[in-house]
């Protein structure tokens, strides 16, 4: 390995280390106050190598989910509980890469207004189902 490569390597590590320290600060804050913190990896000058190093270090924990709306998204908890990875894809490329420090990433929770709509739809569907049953009983 040339000296230039080594210098480059040290620089990479420096980037990842700094990021991990930022995550630690955020996690301590969340643990103490319950306020969630979000870090946008897209805005950081990270190389593919940095990203891979970060992935390896944070690893995966207990939860993994896939969201299918306007394209695919992947969410998983890292081996550090409360530290989540959120990735949105566009055309199979990572469009958004976030670290969220929270009880649960907001994108996973159902929106209350969506719930209102779905309650309405459920009610309609239920009514329809019952009506169908009643008709079949009558016949």
């Amino acid at each position, binding site marked *: 390995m040339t000296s*230039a490569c080594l210098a*480059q390597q040290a620089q990479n590590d420096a980037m990842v280390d700094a990021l991990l320290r930022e995550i630690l600060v955020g996690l301590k804050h969340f643990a103490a106050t319950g306020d969630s*913190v*979000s*870090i*946008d990896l*897209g*805005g950081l*000058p990270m190389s593919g190598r940095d990203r891979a190093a970060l992935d390896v270090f944070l690893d995966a924990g207990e939860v993994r989910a896939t*969201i299918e*709306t*306007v*394209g695919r*998204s992947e969410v998983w908890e890292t081996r550090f509980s409360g530290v989540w990875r*959120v990735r*949105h*894809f*566009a*055309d*199979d*490329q*990572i*469009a*958004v*890469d*976030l670290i969220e420090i929270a009880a649960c990433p*907001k*994108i996973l929770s*159902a*929106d209350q*207004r*969506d719930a209102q*709509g779905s309650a309405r739809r459920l009610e309609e569907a239920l009514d329809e189902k019952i009506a169908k049953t009643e008709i079949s009983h009558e016949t």
Partner: protein
Amino acid sequence: MKHDETLDALIERRGVSRRAFLKYASYVATLMALPPGSAAALAEGLAKAKRQSVIWLSFQECTGCTESITRSSSPTLENLIFNFISLDYHHTLMAVSGEAAERARVEAMQANKGKYIVVVDGAVPTKDGGVYSTIAGVSNLQMLEETLRDAYAVVAVGTCAAFGGIPKADPNPTGAVAISELSGGKPLINIPGCPPIPEAMTGVLSYVLSFGKLPELDHFGRPKAFYGETIHDRCYRRPFYERGLFADGFDDEGARQGYCLYKLGCKGPTTYNACATLKWNGGVSFPIQSGHGCLGCSEPDFWDRGGFYRPLPTPLGAMGPALAGAAIAGAALGIGAAVAARSHRNGASATTGKDKE
């Protein structure tokens, strides 16, 4: 074509969850490097916004900008924007044609008076009353003036609209000008590039939609989020520049090693754009990554800066005749001075004329 429905309602009607807003808002926040946490506010803003009426005018242009923005393989994140806007007039894309098309434009203008956004691609010829480009018998000049009158803002997409671009290139036979020269004080956003990066367009429109104001712009009216840094500053080949490692040709060892393309005329150091970070075709590559220097297409007059392969620090223009002339004149003056000095010292002029106080 009046748009009373909120995007919130629209999205629900289309059977998509509000996660789409949040996801899209994260995307725009990332694109525009907004502070962390602003995604939620952006999502809220989007939900409450009405569908934005957009009138897209195409003047002296090549349709490359439209291609850039509409081209996408699958209906995903980036083109969710087309759900949030109502493209009420775009004569390349719209289904109707002829008088019906022009009627659509006029109707949209009336229905959304003071609220619609005009997007323009292409420069406007002004010479000879603007006869060099007309649509349905109306000159570009006239159509722009008419459409802008009740617009909320104007977005100049592409370098031709933003700076005059290729139509304005020397000798500019049609007297083409940038939209900024004709926008008459309307809020203006320039999104230059040949073509511009689609994400810049998406991001800016979403920002306007969500926050109801223009994003921060630089002195050329370009959103700083996308045009805040030079290609050179964010270029992955930058370390080679710093170390003085350059490709001297497109097929030499340096080129193969991926060295800096500065010597081959790369305009990265003076070009403000996001190509080096967002890249093109869904993040696949950008010109420098493909082995060619930056042309500087998002800068004014990029066509007339001495050639794409002329290195940045070299002088522009042919200096030969000027320098040859100067050399001859200099030599003549030198000989003249020596002759004058000889005669001056031999003659009496040191003691005559105005030398006497």
